[in-house]
């Protein structure tokens, strides 16, 4: 099965080869969706983990024991069609181009599969049409 997780690393664990350990010790494949890691800073990594359910849970327990924060991002972005005015403002701040304007109709297009739930778009929307489901 697959789980999307956000990892938060304390400064000292940034160097740790997490994805290697996940693969080797737990047979869990980690697909990096977004990474924000730099030496001596708190790091953030959004991963899609796939593997056997028990091994996934064990991998998550292990990461937590290493002081890595694990949160489940089964959060989703919701766009209220009734409220959206198709201004397009959100498209300029979306880092993955999950939000874009149709070049012909200039209506907002949301490509959910590209969304990494970074939530940059939420405060940008001037009519509060965007929210998360949590």
């Amino acid at each position, binding site marked *: 099965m697959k789980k999307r997780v956000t990892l938060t690393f304390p400064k000292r664990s940034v160097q740790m080869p997490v994805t290697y350990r996940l693969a080797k010790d737990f047979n869990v494949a980690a697909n990096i969706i977004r990474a924000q890691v730099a030496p001596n800073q708190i790091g953030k990594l959004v991963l899609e983990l796939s593997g056997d359910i028990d091994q996934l849970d064990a991998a998550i327990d292990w990461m937590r024991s290493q002081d890595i924060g694990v949160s489940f991002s089964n959060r989703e972005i919701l766009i209220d069609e009734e409220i959206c*005015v*198709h*201004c*397009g*403002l*959100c*498209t*300029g*701040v979306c880092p993955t181009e999950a939000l*874009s*304007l149709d*070049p012909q*109709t*200039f*209506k907002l297009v949301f490509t959910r599969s590209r969304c990494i739930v970074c939530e940059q778009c939420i*405060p*940008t929307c*001037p*009519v*509060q049409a965007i929210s998360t489901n949590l």
Partner: protein
Amino acid sequence: MRTIADINDKINRHCVVVWTIEELKARVVEAGVTQAATEVDVVTTGTFEPMESSGAILNLGHTDPPIKIRQCWLDGVPAYSGFGAVDLYLGATQVAESSDGEEMRERGGGYVIQDLIAGKPVHLRAVGQVTDCYPRASFETTITRDTINQFYLFNPRNLYQNFIVGVNGGDRPLFTYLGPLQPRLGNAVYSNPGAIAPLFNDPDLNLIGIGTRIFLGGGIGYVAWEGTQHFPLQKRLPNRTPIGPAATLALIGDAKQMDARWVRGCYFKSYGPSLMLGVGIPLPVLNEEVVARCAVQDQDLVAPIVDFSIPRRVRPIFGLVSYAQLKSGRIGIDGKSVRVAPLASIYLSRQVAIELKQWIEAGKFLLSEPVAPIPANQTFLSQDAWGSQIAID
């Protein structure tokens, strides 16, 4: 070729030919200006964008005993009351106050105007100055658009003829009236819908003047005056369109007839509340010149790229960019490709033009002759404070 009276006669006889501005542009590309001018009587233009210099006049009708209102709040948003006893002006960008007087920046006049137009109840609290004529000291009630005597929008500045493209060349995020601008040229925002916008298609305001009947917020409105910051002397291209902010219009219209679909309260993060408004202007095809001006395309129009990281009245600019480039979603600045987003809704701007076209075809909307022109030679005076004039050499 045609007069406004001829056109109105055709509207009354249901044989008028009305095209949206995009239909006209397409026809000109296909058949040329002369041919198109023989075929069409009226061209409709529209825009839907934030227009913060907007507000509503409310006359409550007198209470018994009467009150001379000196302070007033509508759903917590202060309304100006320093004129007639029960006259109020509710500004779109006025910030709400909680009952203990604290600012609630995320709610403002624009939302209250939208709620009233939508028919929702709004709480009113008023403090009066007791006089012999007006003995009442305070008043609290719930109003709706149907329980107040008069309710009309009177917007000192709407419809900028062109505007700017905002970017942030600094190293911290900026929260502006164009929305968030990310540091190091992280994004760019433009706010005019380009070639479909009303005032780009009548660049010298030959057709639009005081008294021109328009589509305002889904109801019928009028051009009341030149808008504040009106700057017709902005530099212009040979096609007469300005290269930055130029003419503006003050608009007026009965809000009781408006539709909340076209009047939307909005909030820009860490900047404040505002109002998004749909405005449409019909352009009568009096002669070929009208069609030639309306044929202008996005690649023939430009806006200046302005760096908001320098908080001065005349900000540095990174040059001019065409609306065709802006609408492609990316522009080049200093060799860097920057994602650019609109702030005007191009989709809803088109819908305004379509709706106005339908009104005219249905005989619900007649054109009006302007009663006086909008000044064309007015210079611009600024205080040292921030203004909207952009001087570009």
